[in-house]
């Protein structure tokens, strides 16, 4: 067995890939690593309150993350795709980034239609004088420009690097702007549901009683509704469906997951001795919640948030695939895939967007799992102990 070669605090790949057995380790409560700020720890030490000292939350997390090879790759990939989405205009567009035209220098006319003296590459070529110059984006196609003569072009044909779709729109440009659509929805949605989930979950866990009963009910009701169905229906019913209404509809059900986790965690932390000690010292409830409870209970929210981005990306592309609810010209990976269904031999309309969705979701899942391992040491300890015991007995 490779027990000796593997340091016990470093989980195997399979460990990182597997789900945790949930809520199995309540008995291990005291092995929870308390993620308190240095100041709190110092004060606790001065007052002789029994607290396990530990460095700041983020430092530990990142230290853990850095050692995960797969998580590192995943994080890099996510960052890369997010950057592509963020700087989409630099990568694909019809108007130049910088140009000298009519003895004026225009900077970034690509970003706005109004400041550009011409609307497309063709127009520029027609109007330009010999002394004019321009710096164009990587691919000189806009995601929404249709060209029915050039529909379903395979990759590398003409100047379409990755081919064109059924309306002759450039696949590369649409992939780039599709990343923007997916990540806008993903990040905005994640922020929204994480905030709602943390606030409601913490409130329920901390105050208990009626508030808790109400929030629990709300969680139970909303988590029973299939997200995709709800989003589909909301997008179909709203008169002006957009990416933001989509995000709203997703957030409506997704916050429940965060709230559920945070609530349980807050509930556990409240029973700890150091909270009792803080109470005994006369610390106000609000301060206990802020300084002692939340830093410990926030971990599951971070993990669920990471997985949540993946879910939102999936839902967004599924809706695109079903051609429901996104405005007509919105570039969406799923919408491109649905075009691939129309022609059997149009593999490029399947492969590229499919790969984009897969890589994004897989990377986010990897990061999420690594984060969960880093933030929940109980699982790691438990898993490490399993490694030996059954072996010894057999």
């Amino acid at each position: 067995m490779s027990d000796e070669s593997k340091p016990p605090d470093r989980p195997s790949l399979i460990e990182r890939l597997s789900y945790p057995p949930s809520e199995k380790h309540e008995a291990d409560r005291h092995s929870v690593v308390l993620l308190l700020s240095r100041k709190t720890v110092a004060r606790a030490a001065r007052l002789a309150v029994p607290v396990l000292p530990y460095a700041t939350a983020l430092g530990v997390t990142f230290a853990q993350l850095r050692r995960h090879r797969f998580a590192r790759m995943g994080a890099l990939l996510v960052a890369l795709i997010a950057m592509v989405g963020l700087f989409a205009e630099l990568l694909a567009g019809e108007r130049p980034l910088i140009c000298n035209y009519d003895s004026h220098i225009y900077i970034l006319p690509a970003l706005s239609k109004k400041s550009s003296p011409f609307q497309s590459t063709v127009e520029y070529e027609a109007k330009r004088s010999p002394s004019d110059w321009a710096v164009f984006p990587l691919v000189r196609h806009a995601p929404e420009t249709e060209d029915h003569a050039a529909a379903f072009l395979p990759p590398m044909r003409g100047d379409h690097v990755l081919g064109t779709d059924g309306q002759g729109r450039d696949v590369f440009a649409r992939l780039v702007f599709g990343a923007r659509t997916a990540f806008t929805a993903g990040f905005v949605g994640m922020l929204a549901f994480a905030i709602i989930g943390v606030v409601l979950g913490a409130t329920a866990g901390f105050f208990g009683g009626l508030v808790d009963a109400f929030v629990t009910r709300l969680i139970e009701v909303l988590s029973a509704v299939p997200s995709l169905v709800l989003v589909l229906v909301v997008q179909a019913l709203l008169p002006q469906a957009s990416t933001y209404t989509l995000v709203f509809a997703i957030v409506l059900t997704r916050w429940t997951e965060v709230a559920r986790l945070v609530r349980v965690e807050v509930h556990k932390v409240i029973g700890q001795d150091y909270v009792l000690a803080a109470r005994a010292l006369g610390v106000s409830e609000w301060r206990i919640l802020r300084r002692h409870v939340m830093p410990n209970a926030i971990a599951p929210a971070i993990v669920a948030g990471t997985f949540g981005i993946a879910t939102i990306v999936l839902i967004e592309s599924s809706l695109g695939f079903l051609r429901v609810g996104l405005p007509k010209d919105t570039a969406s990976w799923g919408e491109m895939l649905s075009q691939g269904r129309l022609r059997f031999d149009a593999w490029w309309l399947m492969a590229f967007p499919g790969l984009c969705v897969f890589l994004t979701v897989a990377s986010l899942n990897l990061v999420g799992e690594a984060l969960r391992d880093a933030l929940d040491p109980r699982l790691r300890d438990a898993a490490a102990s399993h490694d030996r015991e059954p072996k010894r007995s057999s």
Partner: protein
Amino acid sequence: MLRYALRRILWAVPTLIGLSVLAFALTSLIPAGALGGDKATEATRSRQMFLGLPYFLNSSPVGADELAAQLLKRMATGPDAEAEAELARVGGAALPYILPRLDQLPLDARERVARSLTPVALRMGLEGSLPTGRGLRDLAAFWSHFWDDHTLDFTTSSVSRAVSRYTEHGGDDRFHALRLVDTFALPAIFEELKKTQEPARRARLIQLASLSTSLGPNVTEQDAAFSIDRARDRWLEWWYVYRSDFTPFEGSERLLAAITETRYGKWSARVFSGELGVSSRDGETIVRKLRRRAPVTLVSILLALLGSYAISIPVGLVTARRRGEPVDFVAAAVAFIAYSIPAFVHCELLRRLALLGGMVDSWALLPAAALLIVSVAPFVRYQRATVLDVLGQDYVRTAFAKGGTTARVMWVHVLRNALVPTIALSGTQLPALLGTTFVVEEVFAVPGLGYETLRAVEARDVPWLVAIVTVTATISVLGILLADLVAAVLYPHLRAQFGSHVGRAR
């Protein structure tokens, strides 16, 4: 066990009520103007969706009596074409509240009322006795006399008796007697229409309703049972919307109407009676559609779940036991990849493979297979994690120490205890699976719930869309309930934990 089951089922009731509120919130999401159409159709649609009613409490519900009083007041103050048309529409149901007060009105108002009631008289078959060729004054006198003669006909009990006799036996005399009370008979007619099963009787009642409201669809007794059923659905839907125009709210009914005559009241009365309305796409009732579509979807989900268990239990046992070995690595990698590929890519790949391989024969199994690929990964990973957890328990070590073979220990000690979380997982996976079927059905053109919903999206079929949210969510709630009950049957100690177990949000 029974006590546990009852408590668990009762626990689900508030959740279902909460769901109805949620689905109701969806209906109120839609602004009336967004539905398109001209002003008249817009008014009708907003009426059909009860946009004019308050949300939860109606302090002044408008029944037939109140409506008649309002119309009379409007007509007394001056000429009002809209009120006149409305009175002609409401007809017989308003007469008991209009005619007795006719004498107290000023002369011109009296004439206006009499004039607007003329179409009602024609519907009642009174064209012979209407005063011909003379002024409005005589018309007003005619209605006063009419009321003197026919007061006794306009009583609820006699009308409902007449309706049930007519339903049973038919006959011209009874028909004309009922025709005379016009829309006043509608409550009794629809009561009877809900009860009777026989097509001919239903047709008779529909004829009466159609005559007194001058609305369609009308049927004859000779029509096919199918088209009569269709017409009945449409009429019951109409009655659901317009009932308050023809039914007075008196006494205790008035108190009740404060709750029922609201948007939520109307909606929940419909949902909890199992009637979900009529599809605005093709006029078929939602319930009928669901009965046709839901089995397809539910069967494929069930197949996928069973397949997931069949795969995940052995794989989970093996990979946990051989932790860190190549088998484990391969299984984890496959599960991870399957988990991260979106459902629609799976489906599309599968469809293409089937087309290439000429496997069109097995077309029916493909959707279930696609669903299985999507659903199996979480089960495998979860099963492995729980088996690992159980392997670390003392009793497993003891079993090994006592000399139990690996197979026996795994089967008897480990598997039994490692199954609980996986059983619970099928409940929590249900919403995700229901969502996934929508994609699967679209790709393979399976005529299930998802396929129907996407057609409804294209046609903006609001009743179906709202119903599908309610139905899928209810299915999930019931699925979680079932999973809990199964787990409780297998593991008695779960029953004792019920209080703390539900206290934690699931």
